């Protein structure tokens, strides 16, 4: 792999580039979702590409790939995600966007009973190369303590109710760099993968991203900072909070290690155990509700 200079891309732009590069490579890939392009059917009036998803991660795709492959949908999550499942069983590689994770209640059966279980229930007859992308968390104002005022139905994390399902891979990127690599891996995966993209990161995080296509392994956590005294485990945006905490701790003479979990299912127990075996201390930073959470799962692993 020849390495080109990495440019600064936003989290959303990195995902956009991942999808774009994969779509150029593989004509079987389609994108579906509400306003993934926007102004559907209005090209004749001079309107195209009016929206681009909540994080603008699909903006511009329609001008390159056209409305046959970039499909705006009506508000019908159960229906179009189900169509994604069927299309994945019959020769396409759909990327379906559920605008916000809070809306998975409107299509949970397609995730839990359909996509995740097909391969197993059918005795391996079908593969299910389906990617579900969804935005999670709070959008956040300028003040970190302010969650955006979207209320309890538009601020959730909910990855625990996804990670609970056997057969479904659950990925939570934290930087523009790993968002691109993990998105490409998810697209190339032959099974269903759901990617949760933090709203705050999607709109604000920026970082160096190589121009060429690259993958990062699904199922691997990453040690983003080495330390001896304590392991701080973060998921998505919380990894940044862990790194900030590690900076403050180092001023107090505490040497913290930071692990970015990245994939919640299947969980990379090895990396977490190895880290905790060195530091003997584990702190998990999770913004999800605690009961039956991924945080508890991580504690269970580290205990």
């Amino acid at each position: 792999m020849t390495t080109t200079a990495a440019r600064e891309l936003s989290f959303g732009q990195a995902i956009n580039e991942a999808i774009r590069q994969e779509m150029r490579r593989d004509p079987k890939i389609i994108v579906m979702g509400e306003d993934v392009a926007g102004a559907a059917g209005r090209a004749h009036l001079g309107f195209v590409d009016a929206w681009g998803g909540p994080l603008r991660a699909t903006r511009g795709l329609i001008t390159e790939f056209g409305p046959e492959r970039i499909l705006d949908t009506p508000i019908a999550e159960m229906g179009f995600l189900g169509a994604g499942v069927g299309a994945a069983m019959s020769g396409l590689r759909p990327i379906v966007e559920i605008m916000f994770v809070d809306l998975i209640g409107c299509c949970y059966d397609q995730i839990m009973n359909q996509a995740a279980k097909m391969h197993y229930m059918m005795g391996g007859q079908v593969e299910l190369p389906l990617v579900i992308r969804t935005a999670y968390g709070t959008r956040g104002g300028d003040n970190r303590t302010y969650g955006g005022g979207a209320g309890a139905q538009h601020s959730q994390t909910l990855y625990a109710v996804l990670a609970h399902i056997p057969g479904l891979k659950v990925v939570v990127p934290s930087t523009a760099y790993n968002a691109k690599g993990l998105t490409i891996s998810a697209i190339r995966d032959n099974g269903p993968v759901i990617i949760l993209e933090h709203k705050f990161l999607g709109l604000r995080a920026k970082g160096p991203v190589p121009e060429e296509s690259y993958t990062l392994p699904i199922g691997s956590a990453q040690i983003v900072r080495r330390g001896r005294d304590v392991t701080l485990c973060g998921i998505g945006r919380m990894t940044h909070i862990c790194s900030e905490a590690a900076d403050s701790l180092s001023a107090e003479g505490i040497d913290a290690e930071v692990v970015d979990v990245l994939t919640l299912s299947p969980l990379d127990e090895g990396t977490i155990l190895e880290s905790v075996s060195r530091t003997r201390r584990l702190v998990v930073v999770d913004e999800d509700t605690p009961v039956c959470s991924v945080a508890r799962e991580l504690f269970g692993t580290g205990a």
Partner: protein
Amino acid sequence: MLSRGGCSQEKAGKLQRLTHTSSNSASRAAGLAQNLPSREKLLWMYERLTLIREFEERLKWLVETGVPVGAVHYYTGQEACAVGVCAALEPGDWIASTHRGHGHCIAKGVEVHRMMAELYGKTTGSNRAKGGSMHITDVRVGMLGVNPIVGMGVTHAVGAALSAKVRKTSQVAAAFFGEGGASIGAVHEAMNLAAIWKLPVLFVCENNGYAQATPVEYAVSVRRIADRAAAYSMPGVTVDGQDAIAVWEASAAAVERARRGQGPSLIECMTYRYYGHHQGDDTGRYRPREEEQSARDRDCIRRFREQTLDQHLLTATELDAIEAANRKKIDEAVAFAESSPLPQPADLFTHVYVPARDGEQK
């Protein structure tokens, strides 16, 4: 107006109508093609139309000056829908709303100072700061909730109508939803339930032409949402949603039918949202400026004023006094919100579980 066929320019009276019995001699005398609400009701309607407008305009100003009121979806332009429907309801009736719900709340009688405080995230808000714009609720006035999971409020209105039927009250329930929400499966399930059980429901589709940036002509298979009523054996009408009196007329007929035990109706109101989908959305990316202008040319408040003044039903002095009083009301609402206390961190953990016994949790 593009493929929307200029329907909204037609007189509501020329559109397909529900049959109904009530007629008003004043309207006959005035030579109108339509029935008219009583004078008191007309005054109430103007008060609510302008109160919604004033609330949303002030909110927009607050948002633009950086007051953190959260995610908001302005109702401006659609006031005639909420007011027309609620004018046909009784205080004991129910409504269920959408993410674009401020207008529905005000039309059903939620107090604006409690709404404003809710937007400010203050404990004096309608939901004690636990909801925000997208969840404003006041069950005391029959407002079952603004609901931002598209389509879900419709099912709750059907449930409220079921409750009324089982409890043998005469209440009806109105379900507001957008033409975008009309594509949600649960909305269809709910319509079928209401039809087979003959529930007293008004399905009110506010067809403003767009779901975010998705135009209705792309997303909906039928020319009129009202055509879908046939699939559930209920009457379906399309009315000019920028004419409050036309919306009232269709709603009054549907309410009467519902109270007679004849089941649900579908009313499609052709309307327009003046601003973006939510604060900050640039409509110039998906809709023509001329279309926006033509909707504003049919502004529901101006039309109501002209209609009632031209017919000598109300006086300019009365209407001006209403507007002045509303401005003051909104000033007071903002002052109330600003001076109210913020919640404490411990408040996060109250109301999580419904108390098993009375008085267990405040």
